[in-house]
């Protein structure tokens, strides 16, 4: 079953979050205005990426990462011919041009540059096809998406978009999701994010956390949005505050009607017979 949609309605951040939480394996193709990006995932981790016509040759990745000079990259591409990335990597290590760590870091940088570009795409059709993987000759370096989502969210500069995601700061608090300690150990948080973390408590509204840290609405939205998308925290109603009437006009919450258990059981029996 393919997942289809448009980034206009379901953003890159939300897509990566879905892939991460559902531990998906497959190929995500995003058709941007000028380029097409292809991201491969295995069990929720990014393992390969390319964009546009660039095939993502290993020599190009090493050049971009500064591990090879332009002349070296040119020479390798000419000589390597049809050699696969894996074969080329082994040859370069044997010849002492690069280390294994150089290759891993260069491939990671190449993938991350592509993914972070996608965070700025506001529209474009996407399709996720399950179980499609890159060819075996590619070097697949698994990257956890939590940090990618955090960093990508940091790069979202549009305050309007953030405001759309988190319109209300005064009547919403934060709480940690289940087992936050295990997740926090694997996530790189900035100093500002740690400061927000230290104030997370169902008694504190997001606005109060911002005020305590001397942050404006945009700064706190950006941080909270990143942590929400990474699944570290979730929104909660502040303790002692009545449920907000979202769009309602009564200003209060109506009690459910008093219905006896036997009535519900009669309804169940009747519907089963239909």
């Amino acid at each position: 079953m393919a997942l289809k949609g448009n980034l206009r309605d379901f953003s890159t951040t939300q897509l990566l979050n879905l892939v991460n939480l559902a531990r998906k394996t497959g190929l995500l193709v995003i058709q941007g205005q000028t380029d097409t990006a292809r991201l491969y995932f295995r069990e929720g981790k990014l393992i390969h990426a390319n964009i546009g016509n660039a095939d993502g040759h290993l020599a190009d990745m090493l050049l971009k990462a500064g591990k090879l000079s332009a002349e070296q990259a040119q020479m390798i591409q000419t000589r390597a011919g049809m050699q696969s990335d894996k074969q080329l990597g082994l040859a370069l290590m044997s010849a002492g041009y690069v280390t294994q760590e150089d290759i891993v870091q260069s491939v990671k940088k190449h993938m991350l540059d592509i993914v972070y570009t996608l965070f700025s795409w506001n529209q474009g059709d996407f399709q996720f096809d399950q179980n499609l993987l890159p060819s075996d000759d590619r070097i697949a370096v698994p990257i956890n998406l939590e940090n990618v989502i955090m960093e990508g969210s940091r790069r979202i500069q549009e305050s309007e978009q953030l405001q759309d995601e988190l319109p209300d700061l005064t009547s919403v608090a934060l709480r940690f999701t289940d087992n936050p300690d295990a997740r926090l150990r694997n996530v790189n948080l900035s100093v500002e994010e740690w400061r927000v973390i230290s104030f997370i408590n169902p008694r504190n509204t997001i606005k109060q956390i911002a005020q305590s840290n001397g942050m404006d609405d945009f700064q706190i939205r950006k941080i909270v949005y990143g942590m929400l998308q990474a699944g570290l925290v979730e929104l909660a109603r502040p303790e002692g505050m009545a449920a907000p009437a979202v769009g309602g006009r009564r200003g209060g919450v109506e009690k459910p009607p008093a219905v006896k258990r036997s009535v519900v059981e009669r309804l169940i029996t009747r519907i089963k017979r239909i």
Partner: protein
Amino acid sequence: MQTVKMVITGPFSAGKTEFIRSISEIDVVSTERKISSEAERVKEATTVAMDFGRITVDEDLVLYLFGTPGQRRFDFMWEILSEGMLGFIVLIDSVRSETFREAKHILEIFRSYAPTPYVVAANKQDLPDAWSPEDLRIALKIDSNVKVLSCVATEKEHVKNVLLELLYSILEGMEEGT
């Protein structure tokens, strides 16, 4: 005679009218109009006030099903329809991801009207591009204690299952409350 009410809500074209039609013992009283907006012209007519269906349990008890209008400009009807509801069902068009944000918005509004149990029905699961209920749960950030059910609103058995699951949730809520 006692009457109880359930509300079927969801975005424009999610399949609310079909859902009620599949199970109601009477012809659904539907207040439909021709679509005027070009952007929303994915079907010929839409519900502008409400759909109304009925299931008679016995001579003392009747269940009414109310379908809300999906278009935002008729949202003044939502609160009126929600009054006194036993529970509600949020129907989602699993194929049209552009409606997911609206579905989440509608869900939050109905939650604010009354703390009644609800379930989410992922409709149009028979179509090849339908998002699975598991993916929809993540996409719409639906709590793990809320049921997200696979559904094809034109299939009576699917509709029965969704209604039954909502009733089971209502029973569970009663047990927790006692």
